[in-house]
C-alpha cells in the first residue's frame, strides 16, 4: 500500500515540481503515470525512492512514512523497491548475472537463494541464455530486460518504471510490456510513460499529471491530456 497525502515539492528558487498531490495505490495495482515533460511523473518516483525531499504532506509506503523531516531509513526503503529506468543503469563491468544478483546481495541474500531467484528472473524476462554476457554485448531491449530482472529479484514488492520503453523500438516495447503484464500479478507497479499506444492498449488505472498537479485519476483509463 502506497499513499500520497497532499504531497508538494518546491525547489529553493520557487519552482513547483508537485502541488498537493494525493492518491492511494493498492497492493499489486498497476498504475500509469502520464503527462507532458515536467508534469511531475519522475518527481513522484523519486519521492518514493527518497531521492528528493518533499516540502509538504506525507507519503506512506507500507509501514514507512516519509515527511518533510529528514528520512533516515533510505537504504531500507529502497531495498523494498525495484527500479527500471529509461537509460537502464546497468553496471558496465559486470555480466548479466552479476548485475541482477547485485540487487539481492545488497539485501544480504545467500548465494544459493540469489542464484535461484536470478535464474528465475532471467527466465521470466527471456534473457537466461545471455546470463554470462556483458552489457556491451547486449541490445537496448536486452539491457532493459536485465534491468527488469534486477528490479524483480530480492522480494521487492514495488516496481517503479520511469519511461522504461523510451529507448526501445516498437517491437521490443511490446515484448517488454508483456513482461510487465506478467509482473503485475505479484507486484505493485508505477509506470511513468509518454507512450500513448501502451496506455491505450493496456487499460489500467491512469494518473494524469500536469504542471505538478494531479488532473485526473481514472480506473482503466486511456492516455488523454
Amino acid at each position, binding site marked *: 500500500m502506497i499513499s500520497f497525502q497532499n504531497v508538494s515539492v518546491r525547489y529553493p528558487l520557487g519552482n513547483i515540481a508537485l502541488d498537493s498531490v494525493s492518491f492511494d495505490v493498492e497492493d499489486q495495482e498497476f498504475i500509469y503515470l502520464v503527462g507532458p515533460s515536467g508534469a511531475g511523473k519522475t518527481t513522484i518516483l523519486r519521492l518514493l*525512492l527518497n531521492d528528493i525531499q518533499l516540502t509538504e504532506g506525507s507519503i506512506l509506503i507500507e509501514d514507512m512514512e516519509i515527511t518533510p523531516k529528514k528520512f533516515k531509513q533510505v*537504504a531500507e526503503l*529502497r531495498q523494498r523497491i525495484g527500479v527500471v529506468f529509461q537509460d537502464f543503469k546497468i553496471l558496465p563491468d559486470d555480466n548479466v548475472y552479476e548485475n541482477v544478483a547485485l*540487487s539481492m546481495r545488497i539485501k544480504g541474500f545467500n548465494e544459493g537463494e540469489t542464484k535461484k531467484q536470478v535464474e528465475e528472473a532471467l527466465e521470466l524476462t527471456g534473457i537466461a541464455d545471455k546470463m554470462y554476457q556483458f552489457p556491451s554485448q547486449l541490445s537496448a531491449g536486452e539491457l532493459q530486460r536485465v534491468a527488469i530482472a534486477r528490479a524483480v529479484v530480492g522480494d521487492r514488492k514495488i516496481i517503479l518504471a520511469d519511461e522504461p520503453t523510451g529507448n526501445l523500438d516498437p517491437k521490443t516495447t511490446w515484448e517488454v510490456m508483456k513482461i510487465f503484464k506478467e509482473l503485475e500479478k505479484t507486484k505493485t507497479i508505477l509506470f511513468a510513460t509518454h507512450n500513448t499506444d501502451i496506455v491505450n492498449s493496456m487499460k489500467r488505472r491512469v494518473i494524469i499529471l500536469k504542471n505538478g498537479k494531479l488532473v485526473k485519476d481514472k480506473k482503466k483509463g486511456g492516455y488523454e491530456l
Partner: protein
Amino acid sequence: MNEILTSLRRTPYQTFAALSVLFFTLLLSGLLFISLTFLQGLLDYVETRPRIIVYFQVKAEEEQIFAVRDQLEATGKIADITYVSKDKAFEIYKEFTQNDPLLVEMTSPEILPASLEIDAKQPEYLPELADLLSNQPGVDEVQFQKDIINNLLNITSNVRKVTFLFFSYLMFMSIIVLTTTLSFKIALKREEISILKLLGATNMYIRKPFIGESVFLGFLATSLANIVLIGVLILLNAFLKDYFADLGNLSMSLFGLPLQVWPFNLTFAILTLSVTAIFSLFITLISSFTATNRYL
C-alpha cells in the same frame, strides 16, 4: 579478493603510487621504531648498571683504599665493589696496548693508579657516593655515569620528538596520497555508486570494496616493508654483533613486560611487524573512510 585485484589492475599507476608511499612510510616507521627501542634498551641497560670508578693517587696506600672501601660498604647503598690494584691495572693496560710493545715498555705498575669499581644499588645514589668519595684522602678522580645517562636521556628524548613529528608527517602524507588515489577511483565509479544507492545499498556496502582495496594495499606494503627490514637486519647482523660485542643483551619494559631488543630476535621482529601493520591499518582505514565520505 578477485574484485580487489581487478580494480587494482585497472588503475596501475594509482596503485603503484599508493603502494610506494605506503611502503616507504612503513619502512621508515619500522626503522624509527627499531632505533627508538634500541636506544631505550641502551638507556635501560646503562641505568640498571649504576657505576662509579674512583682512581686513587699513585702514592695512596692500600690500607687507605681499603678504608674507603669499608666506609662505602657501610653506607648500605653499594651492590658490589671491585678493587683494581696497580698490578691488575697494569695487566689491563698491557691487554689494551698489546699491539704497541713500546708503550708497555715505557710503563710500569708503579705509575698506574689503583682504583675501586663501585656498583650502586640505585642510580640515584651515584651523586651522593661521588660526593663522599671526592672528600676522601688519597682520591685522585671520581668518574660516574651521570654524563652518559644524561646524554642518552637527551638523545632518546630528541629521537622521540623527531620520531613523533616524522611519524605524523609520514602518516599525513600517506593519508593524503591514499585518499586522493581512492577519490580518483571513486570518481570513476560515481555512476556505479549512484546505481547501488538507488538499489538500496547501505553506505557500508558501498564503502566495503574501497576499504578492502586500501587495506589490501596496506597489507602488501606492510609485508614488503618488513621483508626489506628483516633483510637489512640479517645483512647487518654480523657487523652489528661485532660492533656491539661488549653490550650483551639489551632489554626494555613494554607495558610491564620485558622485551629483548638486542640481539635481534623473533619476538622483536613480530612486534615490529605488528606495529607497522597497525600503523598501516590506521592509515588505510582513515583514507578509505575520508575518500568515500565525500561521495556518500
